[in-house]
C-alpha cells in the first residue's frame, strides 16, 4: 500500500529500466546476429539489476520511526511478514519486468510469438527465485550500515543457479525451441525456488530477531 501510494521505488525502477535499454541499444547497434546471441543475457541483466534495486529497498520503510521494532514485537509467526514482503516484491518486479519485456520487443525488434507462454513461465519462476532470496537478504542487511554494498554482494552469488537456468531457457525459447527442450532448466528453477522459499520461511524469524 505504501509503495502504491508513494510510487517511489516503481518510478525509480521504470526510469532505470528505460535508461538501461537505451544504453544496450546504443552499445549493440542494429547487428541482428550479435543481438540474438546476447539478448537473453541482456534481458535477465535488466531484470536482475532492477530486482536488486527494488528488493534492496524492501525493508527500508521499516527503518523509519523504528517500525522494525513494531514488527519484532508483534506476537505470532514472523514468516507471515516474510510472505507479505515477498508478495509485494513479486508484484513490483512483475510490473517492471512486463514493461521491460515490452520495451525489449520494441527496442530490439524481437519476435516473441509462440515463445511468449514459455517465456512467461521462465520469467515467473526466475522472479520467484530472485524475490525469495532477495527478500531474505534485504531483511538481513536492512540494519547494517553498508547495506547498499553488502546486499548485492551477498545476493548475486546465491542467484547463480537462477541466472543460469533463466538465461539458458530464455535463449532456447527465443530460438523458438519447444518448452520440452528446456525442461531440465525449468526443473532447476523450480528446485531453486523451493529451496529459497523454504530457507526464507524457516530462517526469517531468526533474521528479524537479529
Amino acid at each position, binding site marked *: *500500500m*505504501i509503495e502504491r*501510494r*508513494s510510487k517511489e521505488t516503481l518510478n525509480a525502477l521504470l526510469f532505470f529500466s528505460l535508461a538501461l535499454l537505451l544504453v544496450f541499444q546504443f552499445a549493440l547497434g542494429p547487428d541482428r546476429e550479435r543481438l540474438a546471441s546476447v539478448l537473453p543475457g541482456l534481458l535477465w541483466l535488466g531484470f536482475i539489476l532492477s530486482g536488486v534495486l527494488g528488493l534492496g529497498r524492501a525493508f527500508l*520503510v521499516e527503518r*523509519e*520511526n*523504528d*517500525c522494525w*521494532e*513494531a*514488527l*519484532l*514485537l*508483534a*506476537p*505470532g509467526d514472523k514468516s507471515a511478514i516474510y510472505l507479505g514482503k515477498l508478495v509485494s516484491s513479486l508484484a513490483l518486479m512483475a510490473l517492471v519486468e512486463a514493461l521491460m519485456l515490452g520495451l525489449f520487443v520494441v527496442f530490439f525488434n524481437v519476435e516473441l510469438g509462440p515463445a511468449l507462454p514459455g517465456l512467461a513461465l521462465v520469467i515467473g519462476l526466475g522472479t520467484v527465485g530472485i524475490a525469495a532470496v532477495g527478500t531474505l537478504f534485504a531483511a538481513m542487511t536492512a540494519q547494517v550500515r553498508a547495506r547498499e554494498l553488502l546486499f548485492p554482494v551477498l545476493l548475486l552469488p546465491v542467484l547463480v543457479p537462477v541466472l543460469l537456468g533463466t538465461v539458458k531457457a530464455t535463449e532456447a525459447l527465443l530460438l523458438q525451441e519447444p518448452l520440452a527442450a528446456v525442461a531440465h532448466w525449468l526443473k532447476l528453477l523450480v528446485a531453486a525456488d523451493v529451496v529459497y522459499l523454504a530457507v526464507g520461511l524457516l530462517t526469517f524469524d531468526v533474521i528479524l*530477531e537479529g
Partner: protein
Amino acid sequence: MAAVPLIRVVGLVRVFGAQRVLDGVDLDIAAGEAVALLGPNGAGKTTLLKIVATLLRPTRGTATVAGHDCVRDAESARAVLGVVGHGAHVYEDLTARENLAFWARLNGRPVGGDTLTDALADVDLDRHADARVRTFSAGMRRRLALARLGLTNPRVLLLDEPFAGLDQRARKWLEGRLEAFKAGGGALLMATHSFGRELGISDRLAILAGGRVTLDTPRAGLESQDVQRLYAAYTEEVS
C-alpha cells in the same frame, strides 16, 4: 507467599563494544505499580527498556515479564507487553487509521466497527484519521503511537519519555490512562528526564547511573525539589 513481580530484572549487564552500559541492574515492579526510571543521557535507560521489551539481548543477567523470560520466552513476554519507545512505530505514507489498522491486524486484534475511530478519538486524532502521518507534528505522532495501547490490553507498559512532545490536553489524557492502567493491576516502567507529570503517577523512583540503579525509593512524600536534590546526589556520586 509474595506474588511474582510483573517485571523482574536481576543482575542485568549489557556491553556495547568496550562500553559497559548496564552493569548489574536489579529492579522489581509489582502489579499496580509505576516506576519512573531517571538518569542522565547515556545512563542506559533505553537499553534497559529495550531488554525488558525483548528487543535487545542482555550480555548477562535475566529480565522477566509476567514470569516469561525476555530472551528464552520472548513470544510469551510480547503477548503481555505494551511498548512506546523513541520511534513512534508509524508509517509516514499511511494515514492514521491505516497505521492503526495495520498494527491491530499484526497483533491479531479486530479492526471492525468503530474500534479504530474510538481509539483515534481517544487521543483526539479522529479529525485527522484519514490524513497521512507524513503531515503530522511530533506530538500527533506520539498520540497515534499511544492510541495503539487502547487497542490491546497489555499487563506491562514500557514507555520511553511518554509525555515528550504532548500538549497539555494530551498529557492530561495520558495521565488518566496510566492511572487507570495501574488501578487495573498493570505494571508500568517509564524512562524519563523530566521531573514533571511522570513523577506524579509514579509509585517509585529509580535512578540509573554508572550502569546501576543507585537509588530505588518510594515517591510518596517527595516534592519536586527533593527529587532534584536526590537526582543530583545520586548521579553526581557516580560521575
